[in-house]
């Protein structure tokens, strides 16, 4: 190999040209003594062990999990050793890696139950700690097949240790890259640090020592184990323009020294910085956009697993417009979408309907709206069908004639839609008729029968908010409008609607029973499983379905995405069995259809009683908001901020003779008594509000003992940096002090050495130490500039220096005697006698004084 390389170098045209032109060239550089390859691999093994064991033990210990330190330490050391020696030569590299991977797979399969249980034990502890830390209402719990955690965690650590040894071997032995090594070890460590758990410091000492060593060695370039080169080749040769560069590949002595020094430095450093770790860090009290967003992701991952972070498209709530299955997690940003002003008694919820999905396209797993030309049902519905679609609802009998006005400002909701409650019959919006939520017929009849109610708009009381930016609709006008509606309450009695034409019901039967053939089996299996086929009444069926969902399914905002190639509804019903409103509404729609009950998928916003409680009170005068019978129990006029967190999906079922009826099948979340969504979201929201409140108000007495960061302004942020500035200043102070004390300390060491030698009768050594002090003095006075001076040179220098001041000039003969004595002490091999030593020392002292 060496010959080949040399031959290659010598036949290099550039090199030959250099020889031809200049008559000389440097073909290679080599060390006189070859560094031991075993030694180099061994040092790498130490680094890999320190990094892998330090990181794993730190993380596992942080979560109070038991494991055998001996077994894990020994195991990881052996694995680190094996990994590092893969780079011994080409043979070990190629064959060794195969063997290591084979062993890894064998271990994984053979110890599967132990490793898996240990991993699940770790996850469960992580879930528990995070749940406590973030006050999460629900977290996952993994099943541990083997309950002996001492065994399972040890096995899992060995498994992970193996994995990390391979990774770290690449980052350290292969590249000596600090960035990669840091990423591999720092990210797992964050599992503990993110919730303010501080691992034992000695594990951190190991890690930081590795970081320092890898940084220093990586930058020096003398870390490469030349397994890729010939055994003899110890330098890497590069030609840059007219420069030839030879870099020494591996410095074994340097690696060893740097590793040892890094360990010492790291230990000292951690001792100095231990006060920082001891400080009461509370990440929960930290609030800024970055931290809050990270917290959201962390919480999402805790609740829905890592897969929940992998959404195909993002969703912050709001309308999905029939798109289903691509969102792993809904992460609402709680920004206002609508401002809704209306009169309320704060007892009933309000559904603001927007999107109606008709045809389910199982290829794109989405519902297409009425107006979508791609919707096959679109061709089956006449203009008249579309216009009458929304007026075909059961008639209400609430025991009183009451009409209300609602005012909506659209600030961030989809401007395509007219958001309106059920039984809306008039709106001031300028949308074209097909985009309105009611029909011309409804308005016509209302103007005939509810004439008085229109006075609410004519004499409307306005609460204009000038600081609010309102979206513009498709006509380019501000999307702010009033509408009139009949309030719908849970105690309303429903009546048949005789005005529904039979042709409409025929159309409903044709259009709203559509189910893709590919879903027949899945739906039939589910229907059989839930026992829905045994019920004949549509409403009973609906309630039974709702109950079944409540009993067997769970609500979560982080269900994870539907796998590619699978239908969202099939996957939800048969495998996933957890999800948010869109999952339940979409599945219910198709289940109803499969059972012969016409149904459609609806999206909009849901205003809960809780939202109304938090609404802003505008007025107690209801005269321009409520018409008809006096509503004595009304609380007043409020404005509710509807955020994307209030976006919702539900189902409408068609009851022949009655019309379309909204129906909720989404179950509450686990542990909640009623509206899971509301409770869950409000708690979630509360948590954020809490952190923001704390962050914004430093005077808050409950958190006064903690540095409250306010990252909104730089000065505010820096003002709270005392916790880091203090240790930085202390550390820098110690360093400066050390530098200042270095010279006196070195002097002190020399004096001690001299005294020790003299006390033992080693006068030669004692004299040479004193003589070294004299040299240092000469150097400090810039009198001595040459390296390795001989005693004769020193004599001349002293003579020269002394000639300037004749009074204190030393005796020339004594000076010669000093030179002779120093030579005697250094080279004769015979010991100096005490009397001579004393006289020479006295003379040296007199020289030092004269200088």
């Amino acid at each position, binding site marked *: 190999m060496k010959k080949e390389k040399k031959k290659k170098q010598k036949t290099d045209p550039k090199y030959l040209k250099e020889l*031809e*032109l*200049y008559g000389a060239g440097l073909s290679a*550089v080599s060390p006189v003594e070859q560094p031991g390859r075993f030694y180099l691999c061994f040092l790498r093994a130490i680094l890999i062990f320190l990094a892998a064991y330090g990181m794993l033990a730190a993380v596992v210990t942080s979560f109070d999990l038991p494991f055998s330190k001996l077994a894990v330490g020994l195991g990881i050391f052996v694995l680190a050793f094996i990994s590092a020696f893969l780079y011994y030569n080409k043979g070990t590299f190629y064959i060794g890696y195969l063997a290591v991977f084979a062993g890894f797979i064998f271990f994984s399969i053979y110890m599967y139950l132990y490793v898996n249980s240990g991993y699940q034990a770790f996850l469960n502890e992580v879930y528990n700690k995070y749940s406590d830390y973030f006050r999460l209402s629900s977290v996952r719990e993994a099943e541990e097949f083997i309950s002996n955690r001492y065994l399972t965690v040890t096995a899992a650590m060995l498994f992970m240790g193996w994995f990390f040894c391979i990774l770290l071997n690449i980052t350290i032995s292969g590249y000596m890259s600090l960035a990669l090594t840091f990423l591999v070890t720092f990210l797992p460590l964050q599992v503990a640090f993110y919730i303010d758990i501080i691992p034992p410091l000695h594990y951190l000492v190991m890690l930081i020592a590795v970081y320092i060593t890898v940084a220093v060695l990586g930058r*020096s370039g003398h870390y490469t184990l030349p397994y890729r080169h010939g055994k003899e080749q110890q330098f890497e040769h590069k030609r840059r323009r007219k420069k030839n560069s*030879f870099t020494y590949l591996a410095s074994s002595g340097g690696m060893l020294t740097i590793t040892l020094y890094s360990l010492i430095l790291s230990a000292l450093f951690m001792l100095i910085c231990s006060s920082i770790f001891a400080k009461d860090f509370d*990440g929960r009290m930290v609030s800024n956009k970055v931290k809050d967003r990270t917290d959201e992701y962390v919480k999402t991952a805790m609740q829905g697993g890592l897969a929940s972070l992998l959404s195909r498209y993002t969703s912050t709530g709001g309308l999905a417009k029939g798109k289903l299955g691509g969102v792993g997690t809904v992460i609402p940003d709680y920004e206002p979408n609508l401002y809704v002003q209306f009169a309320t008694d704060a007892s009933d919820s309000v559904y603001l309907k927007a999107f109606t999905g008709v045809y389910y396209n199982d290829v794109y797993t989405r519902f297409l709206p009425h107006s979508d030309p791609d919707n096959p049902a679109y061709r089956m519905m006449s203009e008249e069908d579309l216009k009458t679609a929304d007026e075909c609802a059961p008639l209400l009998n609430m025991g009183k004639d009451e009409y209300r006005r609602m005012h909506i400002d659209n600030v961030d909701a989809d401007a395509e839609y007219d958001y309106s409650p059920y039984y809306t019959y008039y709106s001031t919006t300028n949308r074209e008729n097909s985009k309105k939520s009611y029909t011309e017929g409804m308005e016509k009849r209302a103007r005939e029968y509810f004439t008085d109610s229109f006075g609410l708009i004519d004499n409307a009381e306005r609460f204009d908010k000038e600081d609010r930016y309102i979206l513009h609709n498709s006509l380019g006008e501000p999307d702010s409008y009033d509408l009139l509606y009949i309030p719908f309450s849970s105690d309303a009695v429903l009546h048949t609607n005789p005005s529904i034409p039979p042709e409409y019901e025929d159309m409903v039967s044709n259009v709203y029973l559509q189910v893709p053939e590919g879903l027949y089996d899945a739906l039939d299996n589910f229907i059989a499983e839930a026992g829905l086929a045994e019920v004949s009444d549509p409403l009973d069926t609906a309630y039974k379905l709702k109950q079944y969902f409540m009993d067997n399914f769970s609500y979560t905002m982080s269900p994870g995405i539907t796998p590619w190639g699978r239908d969202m509804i099939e996957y939800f019903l048969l495998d996933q069995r957890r999800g948010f409103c869109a999952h339940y509404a979409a599945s219910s729609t198709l289940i109803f259809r499969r059972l012969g009950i016409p149904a459609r998928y609806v999206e909009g916003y849901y205003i809960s009683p809780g939202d109304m409680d938090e609404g802003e009170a505008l007025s107690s005068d209801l005269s321009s908001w409520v018409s008809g019978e006096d509503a004595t129990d009304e609380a007043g006029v409020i404005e509710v901020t509807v955020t994307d967190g209030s976006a919702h999906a539900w189902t409408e079922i068609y009851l022949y003779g009655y019309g379309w009826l909204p129906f909720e099948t989404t179950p509450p979340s686990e542990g909640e008594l009623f509206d899971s969504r509301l409770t869950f979201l409000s708690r979630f929201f509360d948590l954020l509000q809490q952190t923001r409140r704390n962050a914004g108000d430093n005077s808050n007495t409950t958190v006064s003992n903690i540095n409250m960061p306010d990252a909104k302004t730089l000065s505010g942020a820096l003002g709270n940096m005392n916790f*880091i500035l203090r*240790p930085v200043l202390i550390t820098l102070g110690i*360093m400066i002090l050390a530098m200042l004390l270095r010279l006196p300390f070195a002097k002190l060491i020399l004096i001690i050495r001299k005294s020790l030698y003299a006390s033992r009768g080693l006068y030669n050594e004692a004299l040479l130490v004193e003589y070294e002090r004299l040299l240092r003095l000469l150097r400090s006075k810039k009198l001595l500039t040459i390296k390795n001076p001989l005693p004769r040179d020193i004599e001349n220098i002293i003579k020269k220096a002394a000639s300037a001041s004749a009074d204190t000039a030393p005796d020339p003969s004594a000076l010669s005697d000093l030179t002779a004595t120093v030579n005697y002490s250094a080279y004769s091999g015979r010991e100096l006698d005490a009397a001579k030593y004393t006289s020479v020392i006295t003379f040296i002292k007199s020289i030092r004084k004269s200088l």
Partner: protein
Amino acid sequence: MKLRNLPYIITYILCILLFFLGVLFYRQSLLSVLIILFIILPPLSIYLTNIAAKRLEITLECPQVNVCPGGIARYTLGVRNPGLIPLLNILVELKYENLYYPNPGVSEIVIPAELGKKKEFSLPFDVTKAGMFSVSIERILVTDFLHLYTRELKSDINVMIPVIPDEERFENTYFPKAAVESEDSEPSAEGELTNDIKQLREYRPGDRLKDIHWKQSARSIDIMVKEYETTSDLYFLILPELESSTLEEGINEFNKTANSLLFMKESFRVAIWHDDGNHFEFVKVSSRADLDIAFYKLYLEPVGEVSEVYYRFSSLYPEMYGVLRISGGKLLIPERSDD
């Protein structure tokens, strides 16, 4: 600080900023500790490097006396770090060239200075042309552990060895002996060929008239004759007149001439013109080692397009004769001889 440190400094500052942002947003203890480490390391690294660099010892040696064209000049670069702090980033900038063919390029050797005993690195230079091969250490750059600071150490180390052609000679060539006299030939002016008187002796038939020491003869009964120092050895004189266009041929011709004379067990002298001193040095050669010295001195003199050596020689020694001139890459053997 050097320009080469700049990328590292920028990267380092960016890392600090990144960690600072991390601390600012997350207030995490580990990040805080790491940022302190970031702050501490640079001054520590620079300080330790400065201390160690002061005590660093770099040597350059070549055990060979000479090397032949096509051979390898084996130099040894030595590094000794007597302190307690290792240095990992030492860049030794070497300039190597044949003085006849100046090389504008340099070679960098990046080596560590480990603690303990001197570490040596072998530098095998391929040399292909005759001339003076010189290796000098131009600069020594010591960079700190983090590559944020570089200290330059001065160096005047320069080690030269002559590249001398292989031992070749002429076959059956006649070489005349030379005589060189200055007009004011004072006796025993050291270095001048014919004025080194070894002794006076009685006249013997065949002695030249000009060798009779008239003053001494007047005082004694016999006619005394000046016998010169190794008269027979000094008789051959080679005058190399090297020119850049026929440099290699000239050196080879000189080499062959000299070796031929040595082969005949003849001593000779080589007249070397020293441009700076404006004089000729007559290097006495009676062995191969002497010839190496002659080559060494010859190679140190610059070579121009046209050689003025003969012109200067004839000016100084107008009555010289029998000089073996190496001119235009050829050996010019004089027709006239005085023996």
